[in-house]
């Protein structure tokens, strides 16, 4: 019995985790002072995990989370001193038509998928080795910057999900099974996934990229909740607040010390 308890605790300790992994352009310096930042319309989805493990999108939760996240970004950026405009719709940037914004979002989606594949999913490219983050949105992004006077654009994607009562029940059964020799202590269900991507609108380059994963393998234990003010602020903090400078910048900082 005692051995089982240890095994359970170990699985709990391993199962619940929050991790981020960021990459930056070698010459990236986190924006400071009087910069102008454009936050593109955040792509938010919140759902409920069914007993069988499917994620069922919830309209009301998604709306709440979107509102809370926008407020959290505003608060976080206000602390940093940046001049921020958050686009809650594609047509909320004065003087720029929504199709231009849509095109840029789609372009970023393609580039972001490439970053995910070649930086995060293991399909590393020899040509990008040692180059930090080496992707660009090109002229379209520069044109937007020139036209609007913004220095940076931030693209955000956030997913959150919560185990339904049925899923939690199934988890309880799985843990109970451990006492008769059929152990399913971590069936999973619920958790967060988010990424943020910062584009320098003066060069068009993607200068910083961060992926956040937070969740537990035990259905019913959550590591955050973006439907609440505190949870949304926590996600923004985990995702955006610890921007590391690029490798060359860090090297120079170290040499100067």
């Amino acid at each position, binding site marked *: 019995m005692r051995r089982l308890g240890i095994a359970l605790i170990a699985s709990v300790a391993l199962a619940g985790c929050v991790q981020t992994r960021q990459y930056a352009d070698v010459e990236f310096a986190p924006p400071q002072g009087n910069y102008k930042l454009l936050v593109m319309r955040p792509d938010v989805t919140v759902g409920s995990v069914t*007993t*069988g493990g*499917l994620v069922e999108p919830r309209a009301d939760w998604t709306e709440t989370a979107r509102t809370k996240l926008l407020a959290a970004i505003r608060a976080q950026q206000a602390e940093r001193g940046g001049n921020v405009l958050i686009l809650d719709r594609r047509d909320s940037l004065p003087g720029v038509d929504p199709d231009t914004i849509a095109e840029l979002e789609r372009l970023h989606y393609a580039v972001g998928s490439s970053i995910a594949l070649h930086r995060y999913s293991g399909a590393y490219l020899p040509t990008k080795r040692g180059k930090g983050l080496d992707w660009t949105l090109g002229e379209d992004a520069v044109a937007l910057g020139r036209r609007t006077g913004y220095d940076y654009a931030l693209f955000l994607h956030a997913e959150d999900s919560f185990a339904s009562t*049925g899923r939690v029940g199934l988890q309880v*059964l799985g843990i109970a*099974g451990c006492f008769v*020799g*059929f152990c*399913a202590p971590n069936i999973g269900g619920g958790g967060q996934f988010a990424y943020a991507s910062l584009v320098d609108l003066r060069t068009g380059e993607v200068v910083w990229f961060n992926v956040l994963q937070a969740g537990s393998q035990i259905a019913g234990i959550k590591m955050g909740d973006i439907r609440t003010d505190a949870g949304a602020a926590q996600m923004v903090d985990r995702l955006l607040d610890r921007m590391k400078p690029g490798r060359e910048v860090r090297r120079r900082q170290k040499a100067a010390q």
Partner: protein
Amino acid sequence: MSELSRRTMLGGSGVLALSLTTGIAQARILPKDMVPLIGPGYRAVDQDEKGLWQQMERVEEEVAGSNLLIKDPRLTAYLGDLIGRVGGPAAKDMRIYLARIPEFNAVMFPTGFAVVFSGLLLRMRNEAQLAGVIAHESAHFLRKHQLRQWRDMRRKTDIFSFLAMGAGVAGGAAGVYAGDLVQLAQLGTILSLLKYNRTLEAEADAMGVRLLAEAGYDPTGMSETWQQLIAERDLSAKYRRKKRERDFSLFSTHPAPESRMADLRISAAEAKVPGRRYDDFRDRYLAALAPIRPTLLDDQVKLNDPGASQYVIETLARDGWNGLLRFYEGETWRLRNSQKQHDELRAAQGYAAAILYPDAPADAWRWHGIMLMKQGRPVEARAAFARYLQMAPNAPDAPFVRQMMAG
């Protein structure tokens, strides 16, 4: 064997029995039973449906802004009219987008917008056939198919998860390995989900026939569409020295084309009211499609699927050959370019036939000229090039063609 393991054995054989019954062909769904489940101006009601709709609104935003769409206002208005005629109570609520994808397909989304692929328009011989496909897609919306499918999947995966966990725990308590039974139950669940999908497709076919007949279209158009598609796929496979792919019926999402065709034919006869006139509106269809037909044919032949291209062209030519069809017949062989099967000669014959029609495109004259040149008939070739330049004086290759004429 202990009491518990005998129970799991029984459960397992129950699942096995379930998986066997899914293989039995079901009775045809009757058009008269297919009543719409929604009225005009329908909006999402339940929580799961609202979540689905919210996601789909984003999808529609992306679809509506896609650069794959053909945005010819007259053509989109024409398609809008069609869905207005066969859309039942939701006729005014549905939207239709035409995507430039050279494949036979159309998709309905849960919020009532449909995407029609351009390859579908190419293959339809008349408006009744096209309206039949649109009626089938409308039926998916009117019978709330996507929502019912989601609920079916949720329910069955819920049940499976609890049973699997229960079997594991019970097996653990009794000291029996239940993994094999759980895998069997998993297969049963998957088969049952696929069967439900096939049932919904059959519903959409039956209701499509009904909507089509009610709008005054000849409902036999739907079974003709399937007949054409089967024959096209057979020929396409034959040219590639293959057999048409047939899914094992237990594992497919749609009923087999042959059984759909047969059911549609019976349903069509049933849906017709004696004494009423049904039309296929072919002339109206040809007029609406005329501006994009060259593009549609061009996209098709460039797939380099000569069996399919030949079938499509010959099917359209059943209503009469013309310069456009003859030209693309030539293009099909020129692009296949098989020496053994004398494709160059066949292409040349296609172009030579095309220019006999008044509607031959400029490119038919150009290729006719090139083929004549290759055959060592420069005088006739020059005449063909002259005609080409007269029809397309600003063509990008015009200076090049002039050079060939001089040389």
